[in-house]
């Protein structure tokens, strides 16, 4: 009887994952691009599925807005209400893959003290442009290693759909929390 139940349970879980792994028509993961994490591992966008993601595009030598964005994401990660704490991961994608090599990204992780919930991604210029375009994120290289870009934090649900965006995370995180809580209800 037990073995029977556990096989069925397994079957159900496999079925469950199978359905949710096909991205919906709005999912950003349909881009299906290939990235490299700072630890050297390859990552296809679709693999991010399953967790909610808080996503921002930055570059490590940015002195203006990016440090503020990252810091406010960190504050958020520390002060998140308990009920959503385990559901959310953090994703930083560099818009300057030329300068932000993997060693640089690793150094950045150490300097900014980013834990395992954070992923740092590096990809081709074309893939970055594509991802940014989908998010409505504008950026332009004005000089070598210097970019002008908008300020944007995006919440992706488990399927990779954009459910919330905010220009300035700052102290007003209520909308983000609300958006995440809404997703929880969908489980």
């Amino acid at each position, binding site marked *: 009887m037990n073995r029977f139940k556990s096989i*069925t349970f397994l079957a159900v879980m496999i079925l469950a994952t199978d*359905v949710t792994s096909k991205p919906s028509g709005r999912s950003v993961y349909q881009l299906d691009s290939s990235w490299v994490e700072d630890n050297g591992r390859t990552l296809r966008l679709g693999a991010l599925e399953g967790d909610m993601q808080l996503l921002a595009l930055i570059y490590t030598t940015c002195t203006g807005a990016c440090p503020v964005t990252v810091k406010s994401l960190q504050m958020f990660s520390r002060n998140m209400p308990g009920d959503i704490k385990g559901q959310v991961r953090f994703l930083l994608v560099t818009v300057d893959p030329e300068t932000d090599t993997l060693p640089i990204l690793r150094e950045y992780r150490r300097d900014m003290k980013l834990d395992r919930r954070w992923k740092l991604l590096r990809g081709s210029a074309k893939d970055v442009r594509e991802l940014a375009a989908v998010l409505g994120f504008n950026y332009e290289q004005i000089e070598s290693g210097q970019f002008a870009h908008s300020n944007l934090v995006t919440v992706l649900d488990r399927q990779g759909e954009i459910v919330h965006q905010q220009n300035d995370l700052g102290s007003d995180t209520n909308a983000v929390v609300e958006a995440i809580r809404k997703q929880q209800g969908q489980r």
Partner: protein
Amino acid sequence: MKHLALFAAAALGCVAPVHAGYPEASTSLATARTPPGMEEVRGEERAVVTSAPNVPPPLKRRHATKVLLDVEVKEHTKTLADGVTYTYWTFGDDAPGQFIRVREGDLVQTKFSNHPDNSVAHNIDFHSATGPGGGGEASFVAPGHSATFTWRAMRAGLYLYHCVAAPAGMHLANGMYGLILVEPKEGMPKVDKEFFIVQGEFYTNGAYGERGDQHFDMSKAVREQPEYVVFNGRVGALMGENALRMKAGESVRLYLGNAGPALMSSFHIVGEIFDDVYGEGGTKVNQHNVQTTVVPVGGSAMVDFEMDVPVIYQFVDHSMFRAFNKGAMGAIEVDGPTRPEIFSGRQAEEIFNPGTRLQRVAAVTTFAPPTPAAPPAQAAASSAGSAANEHGKEVYNRICTTCHQPDGRGMAGVFPPLAQSDFLHDSERAIRVLLEGLQGPITVNGQTFNGVMPNFSLSDAEIASVLSYVRTNFGNTGPAVTPTEVQRVRTLLAKTESEAKDRTASDRR
């Protein structure tokens, strides 16, 4: 086993579709909180908006509410002046856009839509909104899309709203502006009639009055030299049958706006005084008994007054050449019994000869006193050719109606009548008037007038057409005037002038 499988299937079915991007427009947490010092918002209602020049009625409610406002941008070719078209960019297919009326403390949920057939992105900046770009950021959308955002009317007053998408001056100069009144909690003091008037400029590639489809000219805009300065979006929007109408004794409030984009307005009603002025569109009456009030670019003013003497009042931007040569004129028609105790009209007329002589300083064209002219023996030239007559009519409507009125009756004591006018019998004199302007005393139909008529720099063809038109309308009869005749008089005048100049020069030697 079956039970488990069914249960699993049911559970899977719970993965409901999720809205991407922005959740459906509901008052989010942020705007639902009430800022300190503001009223609680109760209920919701659709915004009431009206087209120029009318204003929605005063609000009856005594509480703040959530107002649902839809604004749609349409790019549309419309008439700017007689024979002149322009591609307007509009809010709600109107320039100025509709007048919106809300109350202090209201939460205004605005759905801003850009029609899919439009060519460019647009947005909206409410001067009554506190926040990024007055809504410009939140509302910026491409054609075929709409955006919703909510702002709170923190302060009462009369405010401009306008498009602020880059380049903002061009969007303004194409007609994207309107007015929104945020009533104070206790409402505005009651008046009998309310209207709104927005002044705006148009920078056309062609000159004022040049027929055909006109386009925006950036170089004129940067030099702040518009071809048109108009009230409510086009020449004559508030003239003739579109004049505002009142009864003598009624109190009126005018809600004034100035969209610019360049020129401040000096708003004046000829023959009337403003009793109360809400300077710059604020909620306090800060001056009484004002003749001319300033309406800043991107700003407003409110004026309250009572019309006492029945007549057609012209109102203008008192920068005169804008009024007479660029279209900044409108009218208020007041009906009622005459008030001789306030204004007598002409009471006496006599010869004035003080016995002194004025020193002659320069050649001045004087007119011989009008001789009783023989009635024209020639047949009425009504068959002057219908094309010339149409042209004459167009010139008349463009240039002459502001003073001489659409029906040619002029204005008693100010502008002589052209209707059944004995002044027009002398062709050469009529042509000279149009070539040079006219000042000094003249008698028309037994009445004396002593004003100034400017020179309008018309071509020979335009002068011939308009004179022919006047001669064959307004109860006049007379032969048509040809461009050749005009040219002859023009040459004659030029010769006389140069001879006079030579004489003066030689006098001095």
